[in-house]
């Protein structure tokens, strides 16, 4: 099959957008040319280009299509609309049964013609995350200025222009020209096929396959590290980014001035990774090694000596800044910095960071005994938790808040548990981040998050569908994860009140909702949680989840699934009959239980209902579910043999009351009507 090739050559595309753009390009081209049966798509991306090659049919032959229109009985407008859509008249229609049919000729089209027709719109409206305008003649927006379009079909140029109406599309027309490396191979070259393009680019110092570039960088830096007896600190994200920043990766190794090697490893790594996109190296014993690796985009005429020297200088300047702050900060204790927090506003309505810290101290001391922490240490850690916000180092590296405080706390001779808690109390910072596990850190981390949540809820700053400017959802998820992963038993409502929110229920509901969303994200039975929650929110989330797990486990058994079906049936009958003359509550009259199946069910309920209530009260949720499961047999038998809506009103009422008791017993565990399926 003939090959289609498209390259969009632009000024430097942000590294983080390249891979997605290449996928989008392959997908959109495939969709736009679907009638040509595209196959074997391969996409490419790099610093200055995205491209795709795929196989297509040479064209589509003329064909006839029977378009089915509205029913003959349909209103006049429906038919008029159908005719308008196809540019047809009524005499062109035939009838098929009770439907109008238009026998339509679909003209054939050559591949090149279709390509030229659909590409301009596809390119003009390419879905970049953020686009910009440039120049003076066109409103065409792209990620960065688009400079060339190469488009071939069957190795022949498919000419088209990006002009649209009065807009000249920056004068861009598809041609057979592409460009190699900006510095090593400047100027255009002629493209004759996708394969030739890829080979020619390699000769012109561009590796256009992102996977290959990544492998060159990964292998190169690993080799350089091995040469000096070290290894690279693995960083897949950095590798991806670096592969997107170079067309011709040349891995190089630089040295770190030993004078800076006593800086905290985190400081060096943030500086190298975030600011410089360097790979950190470590010694065989795991300690930081005095080297860094990186990829240049050029094979320099001096073998890279000037580039290495330049990069070493840049890093020296960065570390010199960090060293300045590191030395200056440590001339004062962390404790002496606490007072300065009074001058930093946390939020106009929630006071200063100092006030926030005082609230956290109280709250952490309160939480400590519940999580097995020493209250004095928890209070101390909370007091120092935010003090590093006033240090020069955190001013310089905001992402190291907590980490820096922890180093300074250790330097001041604080208890190790306190220093660790200062570092870990922000955790978990995101989905992939671990939760604190040490008791003191747990106490402070919960105090930190509950203070934020209670504070913002108290001033009416709750997250909305569109916005969560204070990251309250993240704080809520943090609370939930710390409790779940730590198996913590605590009642949140009194803590929320303690944190200053008099009306706790709204926040507890918010937390429960986040828990439900989290379960859904995990692919767990969030409907089961909904069913349990609708019986009233238990603010002890560990207990709430244990109960939810038990209900979900029950539903996973055959007994449970059948019980659910029977319970739903009972609930449905009750809903319908209650509407007529309900509610059907009240005592079941044993004298009116005429059939053995209803007698068995009633007897079973007499023992099961109190047993379930007892088991739940003592948190024996599995036992409670086993009790409920024992209802399945009698309930199935009941439905198999007993007519609920008996002609005799007293029998009907009694049987409805019996079903009402079934529903009540089930409700002790959850509202089963909320369960899916």
């Amino acid at each position, binding site marked *: 099959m003939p090959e289609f090739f498209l390259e969009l050559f632009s*000024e*430097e595309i*942000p*590294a*983080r957008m390249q891979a997605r753009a290449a996928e989008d390009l392959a997908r959109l081209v495939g969709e736009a040319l679907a009638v040509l049966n595209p196959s074997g798509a391969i996409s490419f991306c790099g*610093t200055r280009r995205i491209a795709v090659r795929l196989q297509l049919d040479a064209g589509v032959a003329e064909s006839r299509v029977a378009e089915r229109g509205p029913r003959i009985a349909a209103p006049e407008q429906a038919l008029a609309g159908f005719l308008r859509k196809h540019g047809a008249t009524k005499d062109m229609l035939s009838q098929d049964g009770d439907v109008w049919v238009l026998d339509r000729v679909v003209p054939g089209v050559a591949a090149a013609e279709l390509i030229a027709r659909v590409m301009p719109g596809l390119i003009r409206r390419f879905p970049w995350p*953020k686009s*910009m*305008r*440039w*120049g*003076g*003649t066109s409103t065409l927006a792209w*990620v*960065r*200025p688009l*400079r060339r379009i190469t488009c071939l079909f069957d190795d022949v140029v498919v000419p088209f222009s990006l002009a649209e109406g009065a807009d000249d599309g920056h004068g861009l027309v598809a041609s057979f020209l592409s460009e190699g490396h*900006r*510095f*090593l191979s400047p100027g255009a070259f002629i493209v004759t096929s996708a394969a030739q393009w890829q080979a020619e680019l390699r000769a012109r110092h561009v590796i256009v396959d992102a996977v290959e570039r990544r492998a060159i960088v990964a292998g190169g830096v690993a080799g350089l590290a091995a040469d000096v007896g070290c290894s690279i600190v693995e960083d897949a994200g950095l590798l991806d980014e670096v592969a997107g*920043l*170079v067309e011709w990766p040349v891995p190089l190794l630089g040295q770190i001035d030993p004078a800076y090697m006593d800086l905290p490893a985190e400081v060096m790594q943030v500086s190298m990774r975030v600011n*410089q*996109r*360097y790979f950190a190296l470590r010694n065989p014993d795991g300690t930081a090694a005095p080297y860094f690796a*990186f990829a*240049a*985009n*050029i094979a*320099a*005429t*001096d073998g890279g000596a*000037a*580039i290495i*020297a*330049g*990069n070493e*200088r*840049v*890093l*020296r*300047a960065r570390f*010199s*800044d960090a060293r*300045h702050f590191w030395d200056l900060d440590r001339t004062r204790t962390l404790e002496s910095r606490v007072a300065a927090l009074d*001058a*930093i*506003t*946390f*939020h*106009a309505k929630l006071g200063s960071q100092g006030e926030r810290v005082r609230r956290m101290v109280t709250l952490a001391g309160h939480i400590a005994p519940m999580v097995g922490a020493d209250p004095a240490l928890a209070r101390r850690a909370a007091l120092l938790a935010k003090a590093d916000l006033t240090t020069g180092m955190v001013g310089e590296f905001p992402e190291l808040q907590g980490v820096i405080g922890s180093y300074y706390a250790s330097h001041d001779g604080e208890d190790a548990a306190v220093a660790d808690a200062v570092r870990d109390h922000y955790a978990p910072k995101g989905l992939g981040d671990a939760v604190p596990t040490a008791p003191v850190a747990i106490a402070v981390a919960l105090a930190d998050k509950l203070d934020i949540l209670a504070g913002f809820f108290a001033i009416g700053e709750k997250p909305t569908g569109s916005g969560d400017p204070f990251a309250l959802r993240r704080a809520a998820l943090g609370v939930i994860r710390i409790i779940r992963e730590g198996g913590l038993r605590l009642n949140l409502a009194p803590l929320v009140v303690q944190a200053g929110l008099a009306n706790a229920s709204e926040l507890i509901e918010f937390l429960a909702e986040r828990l439900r969303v989290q379960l859904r994200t995990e692919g767990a039975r969030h409907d089961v949680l909904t069913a349990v929650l609708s019986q009233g929110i238990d603010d002890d989330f560990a207990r709430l989840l244990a109960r939810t797990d038990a209900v979900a486990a029950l539903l996973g058994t055959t007994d449970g699934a059948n019980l659910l079906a029977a319970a739903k049936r009972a609930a449905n009958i009750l809903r319908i009959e209650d509407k007529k003359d309900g509610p059907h509550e009240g005592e079941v009259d044993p004298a009116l239980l005429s059939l053995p199946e209803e007698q068995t069910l009633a007897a079973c309920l007499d023992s099961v209902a109190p047993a379930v209530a007892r088991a739940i009260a003592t948190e024996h949720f599995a036992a409670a579910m086993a009790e409920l499961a024992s209802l399945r047999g009698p309930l199935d038998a009941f439905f198999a043999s007993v007519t609920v809506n008996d002609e005799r009103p007293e029998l009907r009422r009694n049987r409805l009351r019996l079903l009402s008791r079934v529903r009540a017993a089930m409700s002790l565990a959850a509202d089963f009507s909320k369960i899916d399926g």
Partner: protein
Amino acid sequence: MTETTRPPSFQDLILRLHAFWAQQGCVILQPYDVEMGAGTFHPATTLRALGPKPWAAAYVQPSRRPSDGRYGENPNRLQHYYQYQVIMKPSPADAQALLLDSYRAIGLDPLLHDFRFVEDDWESPTLGAWGLGWEVWCDGMEVGQFTYFQQVGGIATVLPSFEMTYGLERLAMYVQNVERVYDLDFNGRGVTYGDVFLRAEREYSAHNFEHANVERLARHFADAELECAALLEQKLALPAYDQCIKASHLFNLLDARGVISVTERAGYIGRVRTLAKGCCEAWLAGEAADSPQLAAV
């Protein structure tokens, strides 16, 4: 840089950039005489970026960042430094190539050094402005910022400009292979950057962090705000804009004094943005009145 020749002095760097950009048809302007945080605030960029008239200019702008003062003790950081600013409207198709030529002109050879364009979305909340572009890296160091202006004063640019900002001290340190800004060769005849500016850095750091009178600064801010509004009533866009720049600098000073809380901060920025927006609108209205043929745009 070719290692055999002596690298340019600080002032020579400026002269070479002037010569280069003059060659490209830029109007070579002198620094604006109002304190400002960046060369972008110069009316030759902020105001001229708006509307449909082509424009090209280059100039050095002293830039004041009161919070960056380090009493002359930090080798890299200054509360007063120089930006070299270029604006070309509309953005020329060869903007990137021109830029690289300008680096060649000051002795940085792209075949010897590793030049990159690394994503950087520029935004100035106080000016209500944003654009897309890159940090320009040379051997891992940011040697400039390249932006295609998309919006200024809350108004979309009809002709997007190319804006290039060079941090002159940092660039000079790189070219001269100097580790401490005060050691820069200023004139090629023995005068260092420290000879010229070290005392100023010490004194202004003390002013910015310790002695600037907070009440008076707040009053000056309010005055500048009122004056700007009054001048806008008279449709005097340029004098009004001076007051807007003054307000922005006064805000930066208050910020350095550490008396602006996070929420107040947003409030101050919003107030300056409102002034900037008013000035930009008044400027555009004046442009249209100047040239009736543009009134329709």
